[in-house]
């Protein structure tokens, strides 16, 4: 079962397919681990592409920020504590956040973090997913030549647009792409 429909560039006339556009920033995990030995701690922003409809909560091309930490003794507790601390500082400690189970092929176990958002539309507060995360799958470490018995790591991928939406209670993600001056002026100070 596929998790996302993908986008790719047109290929040559010879029938070869063109480059596949990534759906996550996570491929950078392997490239980073091939270039640097642990301990590794990196933040990697980049664009990702998914065949989604452009609606109130989805965009077909959007930015993602990848975080990766690999070292000896890194555990899921570290991941959870790091992200909870991020949420406390970013949202000012007043927002409720929660972790829930998720699935990604490149992390095990996997989780997602949701934040409570009230758009003031009378429907009350609701949970919005702002990031996916998990413990780096041993196969990813092994593929990059890192000993998965010695090292463990966590990773997350968060969408800045979703995070901006949840922080500013924006009702529609498309506001962030429209460049409407009336909207932008509200963030000028």
């Amino acid at each position, binding site marked *: *079962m*596929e*998790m996302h429909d993908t986008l790719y560039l047109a290929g040559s006339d010879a029938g070869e397919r063109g480059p596949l556009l990534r759906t996550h920033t996570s491929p950078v995990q392997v490239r980073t681990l091939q270039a640097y030995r642990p301990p590794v701690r990196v933040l990697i922003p980049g664009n990702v592409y998914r065949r989604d409809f452009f609606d109130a909560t989805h965009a077909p091309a959007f930015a993602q920020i990848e975080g990766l930490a690999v070292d000896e*003794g890194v*555990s*899921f*507790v*570290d991941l959870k504590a790091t992200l909870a601390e991020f949420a406390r500082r970013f949202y000012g400690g007043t927002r409720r956040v*929660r972790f*829930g*189970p*998720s*699935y990604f092929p490149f992390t*095990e*176990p*996997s989780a*997602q973090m*949701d934040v409570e958002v009230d758009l003031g539309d009378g429907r009350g507060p609701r*949970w919005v*997913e702002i990031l996916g995360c998990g*413990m780096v799958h*041993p196969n990813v470490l092994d593929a990059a030549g890192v000993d998965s018995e010695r090292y*463990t790591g966590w990773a997350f991928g968060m969408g800045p647009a979703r995070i901006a939406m949840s922080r500013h209670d924006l009702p529609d993600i498309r506001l962030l792409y429209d460049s409407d001056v009336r909207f932008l002026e509200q963030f000028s100070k």
Partner: protein
Amino acid sequence: MIASHEWLRAFVPHDLPPAEVGRLLGAHVGHARLDGGARADLAPFVVGQVVHSERIPETRLSFNRVDDGSGELLEVVCGAPNVEVGAKYPLARVGTVVPGKGGMTIERRKIRGFTSAGMLCSAMELGLGADHEGILALATDAAPGTPILDVLAAGDVRFEFDVLANRPTCCRSGGWPASSRPSPASRSSAPRSSAARRPLPGVVAEPRQATAAGVTVRIEDADGCPRYCAAVCAACASARAPTGSCQRLAGVGARSINNVVDATNYALHGLGQPMHAFDLARLGGSAIVVRRARDGERITTLDGHGAHVVARGARHRRRRARAGHRRRDGRRDSEVGEGTTDVLLEVAYFDPRRRARRRKLAGVSSDASYRFERGVDRVATLDLLRDAASLLVAVAGGTVDAVLDVGAAPGALPAVRLRAARVARVLGHRVADAEIERVLSSVASRSLATRASATRRGPRRYPRGGTT
């Protein structure tokens, strides 16, 4: 995936409120959205008790006085033949919208000189089933005026959520992991039909082709369909399904068709195994051939939405063939309907990747493709068929004349190795061995072997799953 609170409770008895179950599911299975009340449209209906009833001369109608709990008796004219004094029925007062009547609003009317200020309703008028020959008698101790949602299973709450790619067991109501269960002691078990389980005939098992009770099953595409099991059920009585089963299916958003098809849908939603019932007489009587489609071949799907062009070799499908090699296309005309007596019940294992490709090419998604793509239990194919065949003859009568098992059951299943020390290292939190065992037993129904080196092995019944 839609799960019904009441149905889950039938598998795992508990007294938790729906909101708490939703929280447990969200914490252990995946984000679950609580669909508050599957049937909010039934909220205005109340229990009405008939206190007085008299026939209106020269008509099929009766004039009744009905206690609706308000302290004053309502006058209601009713056309149903089964009105009984003292019995309780669903009552729609003036102003109530009746869902099964195209959204008709109840008004105060004069009929044959009698006033009618309400309606006693049948199951069909409430949108609870096909029964419209009489009004729905409520077997309840509830006082007149009680909302019927408090009395009927239609007051059920739905949970709607996406099943994660590594959790195909969650496609069945009995497949929730132990961690999301209300208490460690509660175990998931399929509620059995109250009818005694009748003995089933021996299984005719062959690798490629088997024949029994005049039916041949042949697999030509073993990659796409490694295993195809079928039961031949004779002398069944296809009929309207009982209201209880209609309500159970309505709880997960499925519509009741008839007792035979409902039995297969019960298996689909309750056991997570898509099944199909063919009318043997309309099937042409002799053979099921599982093969890939040819280029440009057309097929009519069961929903009747016309023919879809099937793209290149993408679809393996069942087809019917008469003994004399005369082949016909289409599945729709083999559907079980009125007059069906002999039924062929199909339970198969289809390759998940091929099913996913087929869905995309055909552009048709279904409850079955949703489950096949995520992977159904490939060990249990024959057991599920036996369970479903027993259920079918319990609700529709008849006998199971033959059970065919073509193809191969998976050999030794790949084992999942889990080291307790590794669990503690990756999680940063020590989990007791007994807790690990409890959680694993809930998703691997075979007992786990424990090695001295604290290595645990559990069979992998499904094609996917996390490993650590």
